[in-house]
């Protein structure tokens, strides 16, 4: 296969490997600071009293090994755990190719996802993007990095396409008033507590016109389904990145579920031109 045709299929981003890794790490560090502010770092969970594990195998293992007793309830270890969560990405920022810290980064992010899910008594996917993209640190060679980064892009397309397909399989797609039902389920607390706010006035308009909510939910489904196009062409990559942000922002406003960590998934959709421009503006991020 010629190099030219190969480049059309796999973006040769290895030139910006350090820039990409550091951009991702800066995002992760910001998320951890936000979580510190939000009181959901391990040492801030006050040795939570109860867990909900349902059928999730990792949560069963977590509870069976009594990891919560060590990681959350111990006052000193829980602080060390929180500090490590922030410290490891900071070290990787300076040494993005360090294999020990790369593995530690992957492991501790999966562990933190488990810890947080257990303490929240609810299954959430907020930390999924960080776990997903953290695997890029295992790529050592330039060609491997290109292929892994490209694979991430396809996996994200698969995520949204499967989310769309699940709505058809499980039936939400065929419930006409799904948007209104979800809105009432999730936003009633806000509407009740802040009857005079600007957002409540906006929500009031939508409650009087529930068809708009239902239409909005269908548009959301279609945006998820639109990601299937990513399997066929890269022409719409920047549009997909924009849609990803708009989708999650609207989900926050109308479903009250903030997937702020998912914004990081726009990175694999960035074109070579974007990385080139960013490298020109902040060359320090790509320094070896």
């Amino acid at each position, binding site marked *: *296969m010629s190099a030219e*045709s*190969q480049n059309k*299929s*796999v973006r040769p981003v290895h030139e910006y490997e350090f820039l990409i890794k550091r951009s991702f790490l800066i995002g992760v560090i910001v998320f951890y600071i*936000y*979580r510190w502010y*939000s*009181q*959901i770092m391990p040492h801030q969970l*006050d040795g*939570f*009293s*109860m*867990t*909900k*594990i349902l059928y*999730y*195998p*990792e949560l*069963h293992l977590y*509870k069976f090994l009594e990891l919560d007793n060590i990681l959350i309830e111990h006052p000193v270890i829980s602080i060390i755990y929180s500090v490590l969560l922030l410290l490891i990405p900071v070290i990787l920022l300076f040494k993005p190719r360090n294999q020990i810290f790369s593995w530690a980064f992957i492991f501790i992010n*999966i562990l933190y996802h*488990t810890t947080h899910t257990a303490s*929240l*008594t*609810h299954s959430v*996917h*907020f930390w*999924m993007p960080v*776990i*997903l993209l953290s695997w890029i640190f295992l790529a050592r060679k330039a*060609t*491997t990095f290109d292929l892994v980064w490209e*694979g991430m892009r396809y996996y994200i397309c698969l*995520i949204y396409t*499967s*989310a769309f397909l*699940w709505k058809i399989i*499980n*039936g*939400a797609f*065929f419930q006409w*008033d799904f948007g209104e*039902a*979800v809105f*009432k389920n999730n936003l009633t*607390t*806000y509407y*009740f507590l802040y009857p005079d706010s600007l957002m409540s006035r906006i929500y009031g*308009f939508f*409650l*009087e016109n529930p068809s708009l909510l239902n239409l909005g939910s269908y548009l959301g489904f279609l945006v998820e389904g639109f990601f299937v196009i990513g*399997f*066929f*062409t890269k022409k719409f990559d920047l549009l997909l990145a924009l849609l990803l942000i708009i989708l999650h922002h609207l989900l926050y406003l109308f*479903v*009250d*579920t*903030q997937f702020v960590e998912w914004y990081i998934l726009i990175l694999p959709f960035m074109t070579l031109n974007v990385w080139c421009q960013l490298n020109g503006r902040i060359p320090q991020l790509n320094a070896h």
Partner: protein
Amino acid sequence: MSPQKITYFKILRQQHPFLYKVCCCILFVYICLNIVRIELPPFFLFAMYSVPVENTDTQSVYEFKYNDGREWKTHEYWNHHKRMTFYYTIDFYTKSIDMDPPQAADGVKFKNWVKDNKILKAYANKVYATSDEIYSYPHWLKNNMEDILGEKISKYAVIKSQVGYKGRELEVISTDTIIHYPEMSDVRRESK
């Protein structure tokens, strides 16, 4: 089928046979887990909000009032992660404490399924939240809310209201005090 994805896999196989096998394995495991509907990080199931939701005009609302009756409100745009712990855990606590006897709401099916199997029963008791852990929730919530609010809480109440939509207006149908710390949590414990 385009070419784009197929070409990617072709290149993968040619350039990096090991990574190609890893990707095939990941895809295989991902599809299998999707079929059996099990989530095992880093393999996630993206089926959230895929099941029909009952469109009802009656909804539940939780309120947290503390000390001299002040109400905790933190619905600012940037405070989603700060408030989610309370709203998710109070819902799970309410479901669990209302059971007779109080037990982790998520473990009921499993416990009924294992019945008298001693090993599985011991396992269930080990992994699912115990009644003591559920009873300790009001005290945990006090500590957690003190950290979030940055002030001491001597007493607090969690009130669950049933509210009904009349067009765009809301009216309160009923209210129930779920926790009245420190008094009522003990009373509920004794009454159960």
